[in-house]
């Protein structure tokens, strides 16, 4: 992660602040920074979303392509994750610098979605064993100011909500070969059910307490952090301890409990915000980076 140099005195200052539930930018321990979400930002994709959480900017594009289903699960489509840490974020990511972090992020995303209920993979299947939809989820990291996992998971949820997969009808031509036609009417499409898509909450252990949505400074003076992917029903789909320190079991269960609570509380406002934006329909003024 792009780290920032923090002197010892600053660390002590931040720790004392967290102990009294007052962080450097005035937030409480479980408050998120100001978050801006916008969908359908890039037109070449089937679904896209831009999230800026404080100064972290993430852009996610989802492209659906027809591919061959995996051998072991012939009746399901699958998701492919690719995280591109562009040099825009920090000069460190130039050339192959950002590759290591990108692979770490995408591996975690694979784990988060590695269950049956996040996305109904069966609905992605066109004809078992031969054709299925493959959703390429490309995450573009434009600016990173800490807490990337949360911003990425929210952006993915918004992008999947915004994804429109064209309807497919299969016609049998003469010698039994299957012919696939896509309907080119833009409105004749299938929407994904993103109810169950989990959101990631990263809890950072600073001193004795843990904080949500830690900035780079707070992360620099934390020993360990726990990453929790929580669905709107409170199910935990991925847990991962990050950082060089260790945690005692009590604080793990404490952090898990907080994570679940904060995660669950995140889904409801997100979903109705997305629905409201969807509701605006055509006269919605596209903002993107322009404001």
């Amino acid at each position, binding site marked *: 992660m792009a780290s920032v140099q923090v002197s010892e005195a600053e660390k002590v200052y931040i720790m004392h602040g967290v102990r009294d539930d007052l962080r450097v930018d005035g937030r409480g321990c479980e408050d998120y920074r100001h978050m801006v979400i916008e969908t359908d930002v890039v037109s070449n994709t089937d679904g896209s979303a831009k999230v800026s959480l404080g100064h972290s900017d993430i852009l996610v*594009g989802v492209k659906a392509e027809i591919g061959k289903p995996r051998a072991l699960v012939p009746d399901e489509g699958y998701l492919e994750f690719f995280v591109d840490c562009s040099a825009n974020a920090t000069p460190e990511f*130039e050339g192959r610098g950002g590759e290591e972090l990108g692979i770490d992020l995408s591996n975690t995303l694979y784990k988060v979605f590695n269950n049956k209920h996040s996305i109904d993979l069966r609905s992605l299947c066109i004809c078992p064993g031969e054709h299925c939809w493959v959703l*390429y989820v490309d995450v*573009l990291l434009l600016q990173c100011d800490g807490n990337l996992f949360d911003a990425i998971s929210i952006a993915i949820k918004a992008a999947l909500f915004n994804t429109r997969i064209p309807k497919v009808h299969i016609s049998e031509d003469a010698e039994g070969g299957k012919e696939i036609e896509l309907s080119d009417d833009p409105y004749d499409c299938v929407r994904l059910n993103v109810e169950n898509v989990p959101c990631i909450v990263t809890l950072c252990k600073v001193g004795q307490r843990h904080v949500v949505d830690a900035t780079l400074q707070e992360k620099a003076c934390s020993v360990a952090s726990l990453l929790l992917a929580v669905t709107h029903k409170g199910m935990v789909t991925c847990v991962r301890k990050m950082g060089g320190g260790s945690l005692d079991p009590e604080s793990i269960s404490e952090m898990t409990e907080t994570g679940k609570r904060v995660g669950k509380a995140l889904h409801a406002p997100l979903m109705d915000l997305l629905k409201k934006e969807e509701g605006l329909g055509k006269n919605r003024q596209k903002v993107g*980076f*322009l404001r």
Partner: protein
Amino acid sequence: MAGVELLSDQGYRLDGRKASELRKVQARMGVFAQADGSAYIEQGNTKALAVVYGPHEVRGSRSRTMHDRAVINCQYSMATFSTAERKRRPHGDRKSSEMSLHLKQTFEAAVLTQLYPRSQIDIYVKILQSDGGNYSACVNAATLALVDAGIPMRDYVCACTAGFVEDTPLADLCHAEESGGGTTLALALLPRSRHIALVQMDARLHQDHLDMLMEAAAEACRGLSKVLDGVVRQHLQEVSVLTRD
């Protein structure tokens, strides 16, 4: 593309523009907080983001430091979802390293590098959506980012593409016109001094039409420089209002 008719006989193009009409240009400076200079530009459907870091000390290979001027280091990359067909890798293939090379040369000519010896200026450009004229969008975005970063330049660098269909020059090509097999000319111009920083042309064109084509491209660049000029003034006006009282 034999099928698609690029220029209708009444002189309208695919997207309804006249022959020498530019696409809608929207731009904004100072998009990112962490970068020294940043800018975002939309030319029609082509969207580009440019970020500038520097001038800072040379990282990586020390051998590149110049004892008399700054080294310009560019990286051009395209988002994997920017084109209709998904790109496997954002950068690293020959096309993008060539584009980075062109950007580097364009700005080596325009930026006053001798003011910052033994230092490095990084220019990173990201194409979010590609609908033709990638090079020109990158140059315009990078110019705005350099202005935002306060790096001294001889002049704005405006770039534009021009095509040639049924011997009428078309300005500011979109993807359909660019990949239609006709001639495409990319021109990076310093409008006030009418100096050309970079010229690049593809596909066959008879020598006599070259003059007309370059004139159309130069005209388009001058039009673009007015738009960029407007954006910079508006941004400065905004910033000065915030900092005045």
